[in-house]
């Protein structure tokens, strides 16, 4: 189990990758973000994006999935998040893109009131051309190492 105490500033990790299909882009957008450039190929062609692009909230969701799967492989004692400092959708995500996630620990500090600690990290999604499409700076909570196991 990796607890808050095991997190090191500057530590980086690859979180794996996933592909995104046109069908997935359309399904997510029809349910949650039905703007024409996410749901309608013809309207998307005429938009400032020049073609169908994924909802930014969809790209975030895919990065969350990669993070959760990586935390499970890593046996990380994560316990949710209080929020994010920033999120930037830097480049459009298009059907057929393959996105890889990576993360770096920027800062760690303990909770003064609970047996948890906080980790601020920068996480990015990179497409198959090596372009960063999403950059998030967010905070993750980790459980503290139990005293008996220290």
């Amino acid at each position: 189990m990796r607890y808050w105490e095991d997190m090191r500033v500057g530590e980086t990790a690859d979180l794996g990758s996933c592909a995104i299909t046109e069908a997935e882009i359309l399904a997510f957008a029809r349910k949650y973000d039905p703007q024409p450039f996410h749901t309608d190929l013809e309207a998307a062609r005429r938009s400032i994006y020049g073609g169908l692009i994924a909802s930014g909230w969809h790209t975030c969701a895919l990065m969350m999935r990669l993070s959760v799967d990586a935390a499970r492989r890593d046996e990380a004692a994560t316990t949710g998040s209080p929020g994010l400092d920033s999120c930037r959708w830097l480049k459009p995500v298009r059907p057929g893109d393959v996105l890889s996630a990576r993360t770096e620990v920027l800062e760690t500090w303990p909770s003064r009131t609970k047996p948890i600690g906080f980790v601020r990290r920068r996480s990015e999604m990179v497409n198959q051309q090596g372009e960063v499409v999403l950059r998030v700076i967010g905070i993750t909570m980790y459980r503290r190492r139990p005293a008996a196991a220290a």
Partner: protein
Amino acid sequence: MKYFEDVQVGDVMRFGRYEVTREEIVEYARQFDPQPFHLDEETARASMFGGLIASGWHTGAMFIRMVVEHMTPGHATSGAMGFDDLKWIRPVRPGDVLSVESEIREKIESRSRPDRGTVKIESRISNQRGEVVMSLVSLVIYLRR
């Protein structure tokens, strides 16, 4: 249609009504955030949240649905660059009914693209008891007249 020129700092908009169901919480979590406290009532009850809660990213998705349904139709927006200062303040649970209050905070003209500008909009998402469950400051792209 409200263009970049038409929105004013201080403008407030209230909109949306989103009923959160157990089925949708679990469905979203299975696909994107399969942590035990988003998937299973029994495990969630033993967690620090004391019961099943929605993924924070799911709350974000429900927020954007309300925005696209009620706000963007009357506004000349063309997506967003992202957001700042997102806070997941309280858990969102099955049966909650969410709504949005948004306030225009700042207008930034684009130096490189004269056809558009960025508008910073602070939004608070509240439940049926008026408790704020999530807040964020979106950087929305508005087209100019």
